[in-house]
């Protein structure tokens, strides 16, 4: 059973560019959350998708957007990249059963470097 997968593993972009990161949830999961982990810090919640809609959002600007597809996979898009967007981006998947979201399982992350 494949766990949460993310692509690409590493990515280098320049300031002002746009980037798309991808996540496939664990089998049986329907909810995807995205986190940003800057160097030396704990992960920070960006947003969560369920039923192809953004359900919750953290304190991130509109440059950060996402999408969830009918197969539950998800994309994170970041526009107008800044140096400060350099970080490890983590995807976590979970399932909603009887109106309760369950434990989140994390992928290995995508390391984004902005030059």
């Amino acid at each position: 059973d494949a766990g949460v997968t993310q692509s690409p593993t590493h990515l280098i972009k320049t300031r002002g560019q746009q980037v798309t990161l991808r996540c496939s949830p664990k089998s049986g999961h329907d909810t995807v959350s995205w986190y940003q982990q800057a160097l030396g810090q704990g992960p920070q919640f960006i947003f969560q998708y369920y039923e192809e809609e953004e359900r919750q959002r953290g304190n991130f600007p509109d440059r950060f957007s996402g999408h969830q597809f009918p197969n539950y996979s998800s994309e994170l898009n970041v526009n107008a990249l800044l140096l400060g967007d350099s970080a490890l981006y983590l995807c976590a998947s979970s399932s909603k059963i009887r109106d309760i979201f369950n434990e989140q399982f994390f992928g290995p992350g995508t390391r984004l470097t902005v030059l």
Partner: protein
Amino acid sequence: AQSVTQPDIHITVSEGASLELRCNYSYGATPYLFWYVQSPGQGLQLLLKYFSGDTLVQGIKGFEAEFKRSQSSFNLRKPSVHWSDAAEYFCAVVKEYGNKLVFGAGTILRVKS
């Protein structure tokens, strides 16, 4: 707002020695509490979690944690550390299970032989 404090940025212990990593949280009600471990370049692996009931919870890899409501703490312990335990450890809190996790800044554990 919920917050998590991990007072120790780095901790070094000798292999075979006991370990305690501290975690304090700020939240009005009893939260759901978690400890995760992250090896270099890797994602997060759940070590253990607390929801309710017995305040001493057992996790994987021989770790345990104790919830103390009076101290707003959820410290992680291991009786005998192995070199493979060297990693970064994160404490996290969530208001509702499966909701957004709020993480501490992490504690880097070094194990010396």
